[in-house]
């Protein structure tokens, strides 16, 4: 995905878009967009008027009718072009995905528990077939690993070249058709029919082949159609009104059909009508640029509305692992003594926590790895029974572990557990940390504090979210005490401690009952119910098939913080729609001032007074308005594709800013634009 370049930059895709724009002139394509279809009909109508004017004398000069007609056709083409450009990006992605979709020969096992197979083309596989795949081969279909461990190159869908491990059982058992096994072998059970696989769905989504209008898009389209209908009425009745005007004033001639069509097209909300679908597609594109595949456009829209974010603690709010932050020595023990013992006991501890103890000791006391040969240590690995690990060196048993385990160990050797250490353990627990007690033989040396490290800058992110009106909830398996401490440090609004899948589901339902929209991320099979319930559910690509099926988006980077970005993209999408609608409607005011005096110049010359722009001639005025109306579409394509910038400020502030830019701007810009085009038309003698 990362390899696909934005379509705008490449000349070939630009050419492709132009070709597509022409192909989209097909009436069956046009009719899907009522606003632009009206323009399309207007273009055909003016073309007929032009041909008619060549044959017999007409109301307007053939040159004028032709100019209007051509610009109306341009309006339609520009709209098509905008859509094609937006689609182009998705097409490029789809093409690179499709390359992996070659039919391969799969070894289909005759039945479970055997290695006998028949070779069949991957297209003939059905759900629950068992398939054997060896190193260097392409996985023929989406499936679940039944047997084996292998490293798999998933760069075809993630763009990430480092291979990932896939194995049976657990949360890493899902494989995707089209990815390649690099080492070892796997037996998988087919989970999706050819044509319905994950890659197929991805292709469909990015290509927009199955793009359905989202609820808000439909509602907006209704509003735009209503406005179009009103203007159709206004313009259609203008003909009898102007005939009556001529009848009573006895001067001039009725408004010509060409001018009526021009007026109608200028008034209809063509700007937003032309860009509406491009905005929607571009929203999906921005999402896939962030390496997220949305399984429906509806989910992207819902992302803008999200009120509550459920975030997993580990990896999202805190760095993946706890880290040692402090040594608290027991009475009579120096801190250095404690650090040395802790360091020794952790030398063989390859867990992240163990390493962090070594790092802390090195940083605070300059302790380095000892020459292991000289001290001949005997390492005791962690066991669930003793709940301790350690090292025996120079006849001293150094152990570290949970407070009660070490206490028991020390007391069994006749030592005592000092009150100070008991208090230190309690304090560390209260503050959300994890205490590890270190002992040497029957003597407690002190306590090591392990803490969850809250990611840098996350507190600010949450403050931003709060300003956007979004509530953050931390989900953790920790006990409530620990959870509360971390929640306070990270600045989340709420937390769910000792979270079980059921508790998560319950929480989501509760929020939804209160009318809130909930977003969450998940990767495990046990997340699936909650993912299915959440309004915006982002499954990690590294997660299980079940999680991916339940979610409505898949994050190919498997980065839980992505949720915040997704919300931004959703909001941007809605804002772009709203801003361009406002702009489009506000534009109409200036167009009236340009066209009406021109249209009735013959019947009521006094109306020239309302021609605020002082345009050159009636025909240049009308043509300028039509040209402006067409050109503004092209000018706004980059904005439609990029989206209106979203800044996390309150809704009132956001509304004020956008109203000034797109509302007031929408009133003013066409006055300047039309005047400018009129000046150009008149000075170059194009008319």
């Amino acid at each position, binding site marked *: 995905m990362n390899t696909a370049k934005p379509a705008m930059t490449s000349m070939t895709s630009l050419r492709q878009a132009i070709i597509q724009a022409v192909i989209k002139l097909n009436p069956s394509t046009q009719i899907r967009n009522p606003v632009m279809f009206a323009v399309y009909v207007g273009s055909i109508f003016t073309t007929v008027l032009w041909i008619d004017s060549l044959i017999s004398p007409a109301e307007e000069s053939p040159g004028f009718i032709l100019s209007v007609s051509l610009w109306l056709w341009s309006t339609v083409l520009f709209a098509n072009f905008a859509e094609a450009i937006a689609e182009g990006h998705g097409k490029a992605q789809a093409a690179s995905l499709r390359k992996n979709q070659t039919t391969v020969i799969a070894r289909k096992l005759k039945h479970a528990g055997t290695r006998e197979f028949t070779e069949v083309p991957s297209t003939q596989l059905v759900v629950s077939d068992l398939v054997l795949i060896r190193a260097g081969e392409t996985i023929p279909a989406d499936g679940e690993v039944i047997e084996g461990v292998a490293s798999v190159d998933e760069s075809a869908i993630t763009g990430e070249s480092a291979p990932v491990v896939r194995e049976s059982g657990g949360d890493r058992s899902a494989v995707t058709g089209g990815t390649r096994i690099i080492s070892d072998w796997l037996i998988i059970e087919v989970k999706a029919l050819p044509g319905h696989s994950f890659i197929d769905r991805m292709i469909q989504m990015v290509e927009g082949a199955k793009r359905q209008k989202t609820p808000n898009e439909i509602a907006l389209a209704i509003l735009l159609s209503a406005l179009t209908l009103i203007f159709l*009425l206004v313009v259609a009745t203008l003909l009898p009104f102007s005939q009556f005007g001529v009848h009573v004033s006895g001067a001039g001639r009725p408004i010509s059909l060409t001018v009526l069509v021009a007026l109608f097209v200028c008034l209809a909300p063509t700007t937003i009508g032309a860009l509406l679908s491009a905005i929607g597609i571009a929203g999906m594109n921005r999402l896939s640029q962030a390496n997220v595949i949305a399984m429906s456009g509806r989910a992207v829209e819902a992302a803008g*509305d999200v009120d509550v974010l459920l975030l997993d603690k580990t990896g999202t709010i805190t760095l993946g692992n706890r880290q040692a932050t402090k040594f608290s020595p027991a009475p009579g023990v120096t801190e250095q003594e404690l650090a040395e013992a802790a360091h020794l006991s952790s030398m063989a501890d390859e867990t992240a926590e163990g390493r962090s103890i070594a790092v802390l000791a090195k940083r605070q006391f300059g302790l380095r790895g000892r020459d292991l040969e000289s001290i001949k240590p005997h390492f005791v690995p962690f066991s669930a029974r003793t709940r301790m690990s350690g090292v025996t060196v120079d006849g001293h048993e150094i152990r570290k572990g949970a407070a009660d385990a070490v206490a028991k160990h020390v007391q069994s050797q006749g030592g005592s557990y000092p009150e100070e250490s008991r208090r230190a353990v309690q304090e560390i627990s209260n503050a959300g940390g994890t205490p590890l007690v270190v002992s040497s033989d029957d003597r407690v040396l002190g306590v090591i504090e392990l803490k969850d490290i809250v990611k840098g800058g996350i507190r600010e992110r949450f403050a931003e979210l709060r300003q956007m009106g979004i509530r953050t909830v931390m989900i953790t398996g920790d006990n409530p005490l620990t959870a509360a401490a971390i929640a306070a440090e990270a600045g989340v609004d709420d937390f769910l401690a000792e979270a079980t899948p059921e508790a998560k589901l319950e929480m989501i339902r509760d929020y939804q009952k209160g009318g*809130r929209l909930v977003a969450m991320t998940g990767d495990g099979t046990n997340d699936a119910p909650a993912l299915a319930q959440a309004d915006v559910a982002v499954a990690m690509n590294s997660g299980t098939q079940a999680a991916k099926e339940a979610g409505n988006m898949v994050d190919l980077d498997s980065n839980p913080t992505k949720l915040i970005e997704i919300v931004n993209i959703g909001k941007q999408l809605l*804002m772009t729609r709203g801003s361009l609608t406002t702009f489009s409607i506000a534009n109409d005011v200036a167009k009236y001032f340009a066209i009406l005096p021109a249209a009735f110049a013959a019947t*009521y010359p006094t*109306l020239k007074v309302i021609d605020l722009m002082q345009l050159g001639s009636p025909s240049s005025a009308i043509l300028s308005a039509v040209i402006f109306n067409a050109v503004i579409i092209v000018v706004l394509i980059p904005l439609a594709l990029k989206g209106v910038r979203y800044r996390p400020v309150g809704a009132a502030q956001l509304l004020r800013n956008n*109203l000034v830019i797109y509302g007031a701007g929408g009133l003013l810009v066409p006055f300047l634009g039309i005047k400018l085009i009129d000046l150009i038309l008149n000075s170059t003698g194009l008319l």
Partner: protein
Amino acid sequence: MTFNSVAQIVVHIVVLAVIIRPLGAYMARVYSGQYPGMTRHLKSIERFIYHLGGVNPELEMTSTQYSWAVSRLSLVSLIAVYGIQRTQSWLPWNPQGLTNVESSLAFNTAVSFVTNTNWQSYSGEVTLSGFTQMFALTVQNFVSAAVGMAVLIAFIRGIHRTSTQFIGNFWVDLTRGTLYILLPASAITAFVLVGLGVVQSFPATIELHTLENTPHDGVPVGDPPEIDTPKSNAPSSPTAILPLGPVASQVAIKQLGTNGGGYFNTNSAHPLENPTPLSNFVQMISILLIPAALCHTFGEMVQDRRQGTALLTAMTVIFLPLVFGVAAAEQYGNPALSRLSVDQRASDSQSGGNMEGKETRFGITNSALWAVSTTAASNGSVNAMHDSFTPLGGLIPMWLIQLGEIVFGGVGSGLYGMIVYALIAVFVAGLMVGRTPEYLGKKIGSFEMRMAALVIILPCAAVLIGTAAAVMTEAGRSSVFNPGPHGFSEVLYAYSSAGNNNGSAFAGLCANTDFYNVTLGVAMLIGRFFVILPVLAVAGSLAQKTKIPSGAGTMPTHTTLFVSLLVAIVLLVGALSFFPVLALGPVVEHLELYVH
């Protein structure tokens, strides 16, 4: 604009603002079934009415049932009003011996009163019997007003309630609105008006000796001498017939229920219907009283007073500049007269300005304020002839009607129209804060947009297509007596008035023809019921939704910013839809009159 003029407008607004808050709160309590104060005593009557109608007041209706109840009542009302007119010569209380009303006029009048429009193609005093006035029209003045209020209340319930199908019981809302609000308010207003000199009598006419007909020389003073006819030489009858009747009671409900149908043809310009500046003041207050107070009722019922105040502010922000606009245009006078060296300046000895068609006892300010009030609210009563206003002075009332009667508007109907506009404003702007739009916690989806679109398109279509049909056909054109753009304005005004249920008219158009009676009647039906039905549908759909709690990400709908946005959307839609027609009518007329 003189100081006197500004002061009168300010006093009017201040008095209104003071009364409406308690009234709004009172109405909210009435519709929620809590009876404050003295009205508690009416409770037994209310129960008796339910008993009589076989209504179980506890049983609530879905939006479909509610719509069906509204439709049934309106259909029965239509038939009844039509039937009474068609048979009035055989019915009692017809001392003038008036004949049965002709069918197209009876249709037009029936539609007109049932839709709360009160467009009158007839002269009341010479067409309708006392029985018809009382049992057909006055009844509808109450019923149609109560229907509008009931629909509004059901709509508010739809917005406020969550996860339910029920939006109230129409018969209960109708009864309560009439019994606890319209009847007491009318009674009080009628008493005040009688005290201020408005006629209230049972004999429909009195004969009196007129000064004009006192035979000094046998020629009536006021009539032009008609020498060649034998009539002028014959001694005239020394008596004249002065039509009287239960005027004050009819005027009270005509104003309070935003009906507008006067007892006399000249409506509140008639000295017996509106004798003094003080009676004029009371009537003007009562035009806007209930529509404005309902905004507070809305705030109370959705438990957020700021929301009601916001809508009221939006209405006022549109209303006030237009009042000053009309007053200024009229005070400026007529350049055609200036060219004849007529002094049109305001001074101690004269009001100045364009006084044609205005009553000297009201002057320019009160005529302008009335004209704007009566067209802002869908009232339609007049105390001056809008047809005689300057082109711009006439444009403003006409445009106010075309805005859809939502600036105060009809009782109930104005506010539900304004709320529909608020939904549209929320929809357009709500997207700009990066959320799918919501109003008072309810998501606005495609169904609401579809209904809102109908509410805006259909009345607009009725106006434009109706006007187009009139100017395209001989039947329509033959009724237009005034030449040039003014004749066009008159036709446009008629259809604007009908399509938006206002009821006032530019005179000068002979509207009592089959063509106008039927087409205007259809326009009135569209303007009323094709708004009510979508509004109730939206009420039903919103009632079923859950309420989204508001937060920092929600667009507030009570702020100055939102009010400005709402005003902008209302004006923009109104301007964009009607700018071309207005340009061809009043604007051209203005330019021709003033620029040349």
